[in-house]
Every structure is written in structure tokens, then in C-alpha cells.
């Protein structure tokens, strides 16, 4: 079941957010050994804000299987703050472009359907929020495989070595056509997002 959460401090889904931060700790700190901040087995940073959006795939036992983080590029975001040297073009800064970071998936589930569901959830969320582009820092190997899957990714700079692996900044469109293509690729028939947790203030405004 894929859930969309608006806000790292969303009070309506504190338990799920804590599970996601714990899952991220397991993946990025324990498994990948990244030298990043963590707090009592939870991994979060300055880009997890009340405006950050997440898609989280939860398995049948209620455990987080996969998640990804979307940050509006008109807010501070990691690529611009830390990896601006990876860009050889203008850094995107607008409400129609998300930065994708912290794509986390449990090791034993990497060849399961969770990956396809998270990809579709990301595209559904983009349509929902009127976002039509995404950018991020990817390992070249991952991006090459995404291009083979049909992602229309454009390099935004030259590949560079990070932690002994070539990485590159890339941007790609998020639109209905991509969603259809991704659904067909992963044999998904309809929407995957089953629950949307907006921030209470947004819900009040919507009501």
C-alpha cells in the first residue's frame, strides 16, 4: 500500500514517518555506510521539512518497504546546496520541479513489485501537485538502467566520482505519458497511492 505524506512533521502519521526514518537509517547508514547524521536509529536531515513530500510503500505487515523524498526546488535542496558543482546548466528553482533524494528500498525487495509502485506513486504525486520535472543525483549505473526502462533523463552535468562510484546530476519529465509508460512496464493497471496525508492546515483550507 503506497501512502503519500506531506510534511516531515505531519502529526497525523507520526508512527509511519518514524518507521520511514528508521528504514532510511537501516538502508543508508547501516547498509550503505553513508557518513550522514542520524538520531537514535532515525535518519533525517535539514531537507525533511513541513513542506517535504514522501511516497512510502508499506508491506502487508505494516513495515516500510520503500520510500522516496521530494523537495520543491524553490526551497533549499541538497543538489543546489551541496552538489552545485555537478551542474553545468542553470540550477532549477521553481514550484514545478522536485528534487528526488533518499530513494530507499529494502535489499531483499529490490526485485519485487515495490520498485515499480514507488515509481508510479512518484508520477501520480507529481500530477497531483502540478509538478512536471524532477532532478536528482544518481549513480550512473542506476540512471543507465532507468534510461533503458524508458526514462527520458537528461544529464545536467558531467559524471563525477562520489564514494568511489560515478554519479551524475540528471533531470527528467514527470507527466501522464511517463506514468502510462511506467504502469505498462511494471504491469500496474491503476493508481497505486491509496492514502494521502496532508498537513492539518492544508486539510482545513481544503474543507
Amino acid at each position, binding site marked *: 500500500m503506497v501512502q503519500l505524506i506531506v510534511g516531515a512533521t505531519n502529526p497525523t502519521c507520526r508512527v509511519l514517518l518514524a518507521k520511514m526514518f528508521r528504514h532510511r537509517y537501516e538502508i543508508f547508514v547501516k547498509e550503505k555506510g553513508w557518513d550522514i547524521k542520524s538520531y537514535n536509529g532515525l535518519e533525517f536531515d535539514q531537507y525533511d521539512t513541513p513542506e517535504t513530500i514522501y511516497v512510502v510503500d508499506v508491506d502487508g505487515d505494516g513495515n516500510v518497504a520503500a520510500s522516496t523524498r521530494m523537495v520543491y526546488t524553490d526551497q533549499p535542496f541538497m543538489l543546489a546546496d551541496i552538489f552545485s558543482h555537478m551542474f553545468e546548466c542553470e540550477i532549477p528553482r521553481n514550484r514545478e520541479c522536485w528534487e528526488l533524494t533518499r530513494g530507499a528500498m529494502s535489499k531483499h525487495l529490490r526485485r519485487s513489485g515495490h520498485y515499480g509502485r514507488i515509481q508510479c506513486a512518484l508520477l501520480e504525486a507529481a500530477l497531483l501537485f502540478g509538478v512536471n520535472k524532477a532532478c536528482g543525483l544518481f549513480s*550512473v549505473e542506476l540512471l543507465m538502467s532507468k*534510461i533503458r526502462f524508458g526514462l527520458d*533523463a537528461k544529464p545536467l552535468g558531467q559524471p563525477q566520482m562520489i564514494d568511489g562510484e560515478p554519479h551524475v546530476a540528471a533531470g527528467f519529465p514527470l507527466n501522464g505519458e511517463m506514468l502510462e509508460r511506467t504502469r505498462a512496464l511494471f504491469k500496474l493497471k491503476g493508481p497505486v497511492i491509496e492514502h494521502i496525508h496532508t498537513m492539518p492546515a492544508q486539510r482545513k483550507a481544503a474543507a
Partner: protein
Amino acid sequence: MRRTPPPYDDKWAIARLREVWEWAVATNRHFVAYLLGMAILAFELDTGDRKFKPSQPRATDMAEHLAQTKNK
């Protein structure tokens, strides 16, 4: 016999590669752009002492890709 050194070096080669890389990005040939980007990175990593080793997963990845393209 006097030998004139060729007017090519790593810098020259990277500059030429970069020109083609920019063309590939501008013409939306993104896959070519990634391959050229990797070639430029390889130049930067290869110090000429034969210690440069391309990573194994990427080589397999490309082989898989070529196999898939052949089957089509």
C-alpha cells in the same frame, strides 16, 4: 630524423569529447551523452599508470543492454 610530438594530449582529447558531449545534450541524445560523460570521467581517472579499472557492474550493464538491443 627529428620527430615532432603529435599535437594531441589528454587535455585536447577531453576538450574534443566535451564538444561532442555538449552536442549530445543539446540534441537530446542523452544515452550518448552519458557514455561520453563516462569517457571524459575515465580520462580524468586514468593517470596513465594502467591502474584505471572500470567498475564491473557497469560493464555487465552495458553487455546486457547490447544483448537486449541485438534481440530486438
